[in-house]
């Protein structure tokens, strides 16, 4: 079996970030001129509780190599309870995706507050490398399945 070398693979990662915490934390990382890989695309949502399971499936189908769901720390949700629902939904989704053959590193949730710019950068660095190591998402990408 040929071992593929993924060192030069540039994964595409989609992050759903809540407006009040993680999106703000990402902005702060910019304000502090922190550097992180350009593999990430952020979609801003009012709350991580807004993340519909459908969005995640669609991202993998369209060919994203990894998906992040980020929100306020439990207890800090701008809307009180949104991220608790996110957490439960995330665990279910994760099991479903693993069952469908999506490696666990490809789908992650992180709680990053508006002041945790460093944590945001570190998360992006780590997740990018983890997904790079896995190589492209062939398992769910429509284009690859129909080929």
């Amino acid at each position: 079996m040929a071992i593929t070398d993924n060192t030069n693979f540039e994964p595409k990662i989609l992050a759903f970030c809540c407006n009040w915490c993680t999106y703000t934390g990402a902005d702060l990382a910019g304000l502090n001129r922190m550097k992180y890989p350009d593999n990430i695309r952020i979609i801003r949502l009012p709350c991580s509780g807004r993340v519909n399971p459908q969005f995640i499936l669609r991202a993998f189908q369209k060919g994203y190599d990894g998906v992040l769901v980020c929100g306020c720390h439990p207890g800090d949700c701008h809307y009180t309870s949104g991220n608790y629902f996110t957490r439960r939904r995330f665990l279910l989704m994760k099991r479903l995706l693993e069952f469908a053959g999506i490696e666990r590193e490809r789908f992650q949730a992180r709680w990053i507050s508006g002041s945790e710019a460093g944590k945001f950068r570190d998360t992006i660095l780590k997740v990018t490398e983890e997904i790079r190591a896995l190589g492209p998402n062939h398992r769910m990408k429509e284009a690859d399945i129909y080929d």
Partner: protein
Amino acid sequence: MARAGVFICHCGSNIASVIDVEQVAKSAEQMTGVVYAATNKYACSISGQEMMKQAIIDHQLDRLVIASCTPRMHETTFRKMLGKTSVNPYMLEVANIREQCSWVHTDKEKATAKAIDLVRMSLAKVLKNQPLFTSSIPVCKKCLVIGGGIAGIQAALDIADGGYEVTLVEREPSLGGKMVMLDKTFPTLDCSACISTPKMAEVGAHPRIKLMSSCEVSAVSGYIGNFEVTIKQNPRYVDHDICTGCGLCEEKCPTKLKSSFDQGLGQRKAIYKLFPQAVPAKPVIDAQHCTKLTKDKCGVCAKVCPLGCINFADQESYTTDTFGAIILATGYQLIDWGSHYPEYGGGAYADVISGLQFERLVNASGPTEGKIKRPSDGAQPKSVAIIKCVGSRDVAKAHGYCSRACCMYAAKHAHQTIEKIAGAQVYIFYIDVRTPGKAYEEFYDRTREDGAVYIRGRVSKIYEENGKLICKGEDTLIGKQVTVEVDLVVLETAMEPAANSGQTAALAGVSADKDGWLTEAHPKLRPVETQSAGVFLCGTAQGPKDIPDTVAQASAAAAKVLGLLAKDELETSPMISAVDTSKCSGCRFCEQVCPVKAISMIDIPSIYNGQKVKRTVAQVNSGLCSGCGACSAACRTGCIDLLGFTNKQILEEVDALWQ
């Protein structure tokens, strides 16, 4: 066909030094739906805005993508600008190419490619945007205050003095709460009743305050600016409209009971005023103990009343009123220590009393006229043990939190004992001494100088021996067992949320934490607001605190309410949930996840198999909805969507990279 315009901001060199903005504009021009793309030195500047406004006219643009700094910075600026053009302010998406692109990447080529992607995503979204319109709701210029302790009193007075109508609902027969029971207040030792009763009287006489005692809130509907509140008047059996408060009935009533105001240490009658300076200064009948009401015997009060105010047939009644704002000031109660601390006698020893009972004992208008006497035999105690943190900071037995006021009032109680009883020996058992507050540490120091002996450690057992109370504990500073023999033990017991405060708050859509304290919107920045717009909180209902903090919070809540009531109309955000009732199956999932109770169910007429039927569907209250979108993620049929962040818009953003 959509006619989108794309504007790429240089932000001086902030963006343009890393991203090739001209290249981004060129790529944007090629994207479907775009009729015009250009760069702009500073999009947010006046000239930048003028340039975009002109382009809207010249190219008949109907929506915009502005690639610039974070939308958290200038989305509002750009929406305001659009408000002056033919384009709806919500037909705008901001691509964040500064904070999330030029500032975090160094490779120009990669950063430019990413910026193009970000523009493509924003464009995909804006192509699905719908014009949205803010609506306004009128504000009813009246405030409801629930709870008539010092918190509610202060808030009501501030708002009424500010020129607005207030209704103050208190479930007890009088205003005052706990403060009016206290003797003196730390650290200044001013007489509590002397500073609180004038405020009570002011409430009673204020032309803009309607005081509703013996009342409770039974239902709340509506939203900020327009709450419909149902208030239950519990029967008082005395017509307060006629009663002058002459007191004859009280004097003649033959039934004597333990006074709750005196914490069981004094007596009152079955027809009674809570305390002499009660506001309203009129009596009520205690229905549980009045022999006329329980056994149809007596009726003396009705016979002696010169005005015929007594009405044994009185019933509870309900009234409904509209308010623009609500303040929750339901306060606290003290822990039922007996059930948590059997090792302290569990309530069996008459001379083991609570701090609030001590307050009544030292109070000149209390049952002993201010003389500290043992409840068991009326003797003056020569030695007193004060035990702090009974129920507080004790996860194993009761609560983990600190009750905040006890360190200070324990010092006060020690000081009062030493002052009133010559040669008295006072021991204070403590875990820590916490005195953060102006002149607080100095007060504690003075108490020690007075001669109070502080022993660091908890008391593990209290028992009676030869008419003395023996307190056994450990002095953790010297690591030894200590035993003190005293005549009186005062337990400084934990504060707990007032009974049913959670239920009352829930009526107004406010939640409580694990200990039952009501939750503020943000612990630092929105301390007196709640998650429910238009509902505020103050005082110990929010958490244990002393009077200075309670009053400060009450005035803060009042300031918030004044700011709200000063408006004639409120603008509501149009980025809220909307239901497509044709698809809704009435599963109620959305109702359960909504944090602000904005979703309710209604029955709508529908046709099924040619039959007229009723179908249950969700409806969103636009005044309440805060636009979080939890409902739409929970919706099984996809019928409830968040305007401005619709499923379609987000999916288009997801798809955009592979077009």
